[in-house]
């Protein structure tokens, strides 16, 4: 790992985008759309959310425009790396009945193009580690995920502006990105500290007009990241909660939260580690052609627990309990860690503002 001692002045920041473009990457980064920071293709630094702050409380997300110079002075948006790797809907295969009656199957994983993502957060990278385990490092790697994932160039930006719903410090996943990136940036008012962590990252760094960072700049950047951890007001117990939760499957709080929960699935669909999907077919009218799709699903749907005539989890109490006992309980058995990276998205994007940290505190007390 290189010493994080390179400094890129703000005036030279556009060079990062042009160097990435010359290296064949399409740049995806944060930009403001429809009142939120979303990760979409950007054509220049003018697309970045300059001076934008986000205000997040349970069930609410608002942006505020300031005259400040920074591009990354916000916590996160509804999604980051999830749709770039595990798409909302993917065509897995198609079939066509040929004149001789035989069936021709075609399965074409996407020809993924190299994508550089600017502004991945520590929580996003921690979640990607879970996705990699699930989609790529299992006995049956997923070709769609793998194709996109292997073409990603990840540029982390250490978090300095946590929202009121962030709690990555308590899960041990942030606010400093410590793995899973090619380049990492610390944003200062006048520029960026930049470090490389992969050979790909070194090659991009070598093409940038960086100079050695001063001790003062490094100290300022470190202090801002540490402050970002200290400022977080929410938290999860960092221990494995599986035994505690499974001993409390009849806790009255499950009923209580079910009175508030819409079972709308939003928490699971903004969660960067949730990977549930369903599959379905779309056939042509005459049945000669059929396309098979995979799309995001959720443990909050009836279909999710439907097995041969029986719906195992018919109500919100059992669905919410399934989500939480898996996410921070049995997830440990599956992936060797909790499924929660402390991004707070499930709190913000729950329309009625149900707070996972409050629910767990009530149930595990």
């Amino acid at each position, binding site marked *: 790992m290189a010493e994080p001692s390179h400094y890129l002045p703000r005036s030279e920041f556009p060079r990062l985008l042009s160097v990435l473009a010359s290296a064949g990457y399409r740049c995806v980064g944060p930009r403001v759309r429809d009142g939120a920071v979303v990760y979409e293709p950007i054509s220049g630094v003018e697309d970045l959310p300059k001076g934008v702050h986000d205000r997040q409380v349970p069930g609410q997300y608002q942006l505020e425009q300031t005259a400040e110079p920074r591009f990354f002075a916000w916590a996160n948006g509804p999604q980051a790396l999830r749709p770039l790797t595990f798409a909302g809907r993917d065509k897995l295969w198609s079939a066509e009945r040929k004149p001789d009656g035989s069936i021709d199957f075609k399965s074409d994983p996407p020809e993924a193009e190299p994508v550089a993502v600017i502004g991945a957060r520590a929580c996003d990278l921690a979640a990607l580690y879970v996705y990699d385990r699930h989609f790529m490092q299992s006995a049956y790697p997923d070709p769609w995920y793998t194709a996109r994932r292997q073409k990603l160039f990840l540029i982390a930006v250490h978090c300095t502006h946590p929202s009121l719903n962030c709690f990555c410090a308590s899960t041990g996943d942030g606010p400093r990105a410590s793995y899973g990136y090619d380049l990492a940036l610390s944003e200062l008012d006048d520029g960026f500290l930049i470090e490389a962590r992969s050979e790909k990252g070194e090659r991009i760094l070598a093409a940038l007009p960086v100079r050695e960072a001063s001790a003062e700049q490094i100290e300022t950047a470190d202090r801002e990241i540490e402050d970002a951890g200290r400022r977080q007001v929410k938290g999860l117990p960092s221990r494995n909660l599986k035994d505690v939760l499974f001993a409390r499957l009849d806790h009255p709080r499950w009923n209580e939260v079910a009175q508030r929960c819409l079972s709308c699935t939003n928490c699971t669909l903004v969660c960067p580690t949730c990977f549930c999907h369903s599959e379905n077919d779309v056939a042509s009218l005459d049945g000669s052609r059929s396309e098979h799709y995979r799309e995001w699903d959720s443990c909050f*749907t*009836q279909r999710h627990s439907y097995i041969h005539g029986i719906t195992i989890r018919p109500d*919100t109490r059992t669905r919410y309990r399934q989500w939480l006992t898996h996410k921070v309980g049995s997830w440990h058995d599956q992936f060797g860690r909790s499924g929660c990276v402390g991004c707070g998205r499930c709190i913000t994007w729950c329309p009625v503002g149900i707070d996972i940290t409050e629910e767990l505190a009530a149930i595990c007390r």
Partner: protein
Amino acid sequence: MDRKLRVAVHKFSSCDGCQLAFLNAGEELVELFELANVVHFAEAGIVDPDARADLAFIEGSISTHEEQERIRRVRENTRFLVPIGACATSGCLQALRNQADAARWFADVYSDPSKIDHLDTATPIAANVSVDLELWGCPVNTRQVMATVSSLLLGAPPREDKEKLCMECKRKNIVCVMVTQGQHCMGPVTRTGCGVLCPGIGRDCYGCYGPAENINGDAWGRWLEQKGMPAERIARRFRYIHSEAEAFREAGRRWREKS
């Protein structure tokens, strides 16, 4: 198959809009007429209301004595009967009279209401005869009706869209209008199927596809209440297009009782 599937499209009290899901289907409409024997479809010019059919799509609610009789005959003549659209699945707007003094409304509108054949209520098809599948939406779209025909031609049960609209919003990376703007979006209680027409252009869903499975109308209403909406308006939000769909009717009734 030794013969073509016989398909009928019947109309009861409705605006005729759902039948456009067939008429606007383009090439698929031509294909439908090749694959199936369309035995009755008045809007397409084929009239034989008492024809026997393997599959009948029913548009409209039951609002008159004549319709009450006719739907029974259609049921007897049909193997697989599929109500389509809000009128046929929950009564739609004309069912608002079920909550009111219908005779008084007719007297207010018509100079001589005795000449109008009407029932005091407008009811969904399933309240009158047994149904085999329901396609929700105001109006339904081509994808829904053609997927049903296609499934039945293949001998497979058609897939039912009953999950919440929020799921489709998230799959399409549409930013939530409730969380960012506080819009009174019915997505968390409404079934998917429309393709996210309203939140997709930045406005709130008003529930035209009817209730999703396992909705929490009390929690969704409390959210509106916290935003300052009076209980009576929350009740009306539920008792609008799908006032006779049970989940919306009951949620609306509870909010009306609080007002």
